[in-house]
């Protein structure tokens, strides 16, 4: 509320209060008069006649007598009079006094209300000094206009959002296709690399003791050289933790570049204890990128946790042992067991065969299967002792293969 209004309100309230106070004064006077009258009425009938000074005018008096002391004409109102005795008149006066009292009570109530109102306005006046009134101008037409504008804006905004979302989707799709193409290229390159590196490592070392780290990177041509250098550096390190850390750094440095690179590292462990510790340490290190566990395929799990075992625990190879008497046998050696163990790559190679057929290798390199093919007689098994058995039988008489087999089984 503005201070001017508040001041005016206060003034008005003040006026009203004063008016009522005056009325209250008047009525109090009436009451006093009535009380005095009552007293007079009680004393009047004491005497038959009273000697009094009769007033003629406001300043002239005359001695006289008051007779008919008990006959009192009471003005009832509206020019009506009633002749009453003093006692009756006093009763009337009593009633009049009661009425006056009631009026006085009403006045006092009104005063109370006015006072409270005054207090309130005073408080408001005080408040308006501290607070600021916030006014919002409300214009119907303007509101309508604004509503229309707002609706249009909201529609436009939604449209834009939709378009942006659609564009984003297209962009994502394109990225995916590009990534897939890159991956294919990488795989082809990796296969080549592995094949080349395989040639280098053909020096008779068992696979378990070999520490070899391979990095699979999905990047551009430019970055490939960088990665090649880092892989060489890391493979020379003996401690796998260091490797992972350096890899981490290298890959982290490279991950800051616009192209995203994901680095994988495989290292074959000497024993399971080492592998577990290094695994856990790798988990700590490699949070920034893909976790540096060597496990890329189920075979890696086997490698890590079971590759440390001796050759005796290796599962038996599903390939049959070489048969020395067979004409198509390319292997020049005898009846030693061929140990075919799963190598570091996805293809299965038979070690002994591999070592003794270096000449055959170059011919087979473009093919997927790098091992040699050994044909044996269908009856022969991998057990060397059993191989010997059928051979003495053959020159004696010609027996069908199945019968021979049955005979053998019966012998056992």
């Amino acid at each position, binding site marked *: 509320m503005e201070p001017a209004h508040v001041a005016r309100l206060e003034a008005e309230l003040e006026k009203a209060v004063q008016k009522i106070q005056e009325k209250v004064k008047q009525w109090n006077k009436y009451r006093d008069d009535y009380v005095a009258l009552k007293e007079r009425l009680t004393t009047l009938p004491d005497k038959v006649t009273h000697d009094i000074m009769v007033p003629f005018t406001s300043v002239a008096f005359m001695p006289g007598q008051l007779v008919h002391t008990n006959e009192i*004409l*009471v003005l*009832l*109102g*509206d*020019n*009506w*009079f*009633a*002749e*009453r005795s003093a006692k009756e008149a006093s009763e*009337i006066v009593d009633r009049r006094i009661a009425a006056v009292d009631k009026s006085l009570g009403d006045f006092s109530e009104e005063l109370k209300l006015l006072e409270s109102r005054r207090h309130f306005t005073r408080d408001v006046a005080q408040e308006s000094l501290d607070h600021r009134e916030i006014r919002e101008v409300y214009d119907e037409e303007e509101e309508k206009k604004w509503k229309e504008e707002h609706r249009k804006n909201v529609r436009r905004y939604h449209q834009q959002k939709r378009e942006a979302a659609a564009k984003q989707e297209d962009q994502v799709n394109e990225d995916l296709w590009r990534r897939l193409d890159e991956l294919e290229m990488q795989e082809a390159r990796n296969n080549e690399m592995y094949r080349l590196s395989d040639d280098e490592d053909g020096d008779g070392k068992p696979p378990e003791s070999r520490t070899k780290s391979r990095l699979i990177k999905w990047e551009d041509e430019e970055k490939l050289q960088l990665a090649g250098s880092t892989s060489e550096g890391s493979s020379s390190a003996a401690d796998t933790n260091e490797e992972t850390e350096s890899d981490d750094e290298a890959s982290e440095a490279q991950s800051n570049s616009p192209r995203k690179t994901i680095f994988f590292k495989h290292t074959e462990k000497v024993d399971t204890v080492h592998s577990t510790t290094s695994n856990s340490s790798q988990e700590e290190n490699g949070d920034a990128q893909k976790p540096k566990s060597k496990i890329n395929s189920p075979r890696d799990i086997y490698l890590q946790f079971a590759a440390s075992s001796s050759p005796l625990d290796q599962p038996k190879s599903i390939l049959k042992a070489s048969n020395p008497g067979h004409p198509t046998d390319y292997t020049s050696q005898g009846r030693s067991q061929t140990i075919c163990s799963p190598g570091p790559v996805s293809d299965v190679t038979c070690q002994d065969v591999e070592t003794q057929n270096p000449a055959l290798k170059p011919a087979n390199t473009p093919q997927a299967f790098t091992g040699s093919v050994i044909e044996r007689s269908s009856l022969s098994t991998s057990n060397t002792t059993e191989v010997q058995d059928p051979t003495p039988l053959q020159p004696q008489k010609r027996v069908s293969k199945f019968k021979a087999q049955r005979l053998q089984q019966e012998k056992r």
Partner: protein
Amino acid sequence: MAEGLQKRLQGELEKYQAVQKDYQKYVSARQQLDAQLNENSLVKEELDRLSDGSNVYKMIGPVLVKQDLGEAKQTVQKRIDYISGEIKRHENTIKDLEKKQETHRDNLNKIQHQFQQAQVKAAARA
């Protein structure tokens, strides 16, 4: 255009003031009647208290005229009824006058608004 508006404004204002005067007259009349009613009810009360045989006088000018109690009672009762009727009539008139006042006020506001707009336009043009 502004002249016409101004004339209209004046006319409406006068009408409104006339209605307001009437309204106030009737309101004060009603107040008076109300007081009279109260007085007469008091008189009636006192007369009822009077036992039969008491003398009742009516003041007509400077003369006190003796009246019969019964008659006095009746007269007072009649007066009371008359006054109540008058009060009701006055109340109706007051209501009507208030409505008229309202319409006049609205008209005045409208014309005033138009007048202000016209003034603003004139000021803009000038």
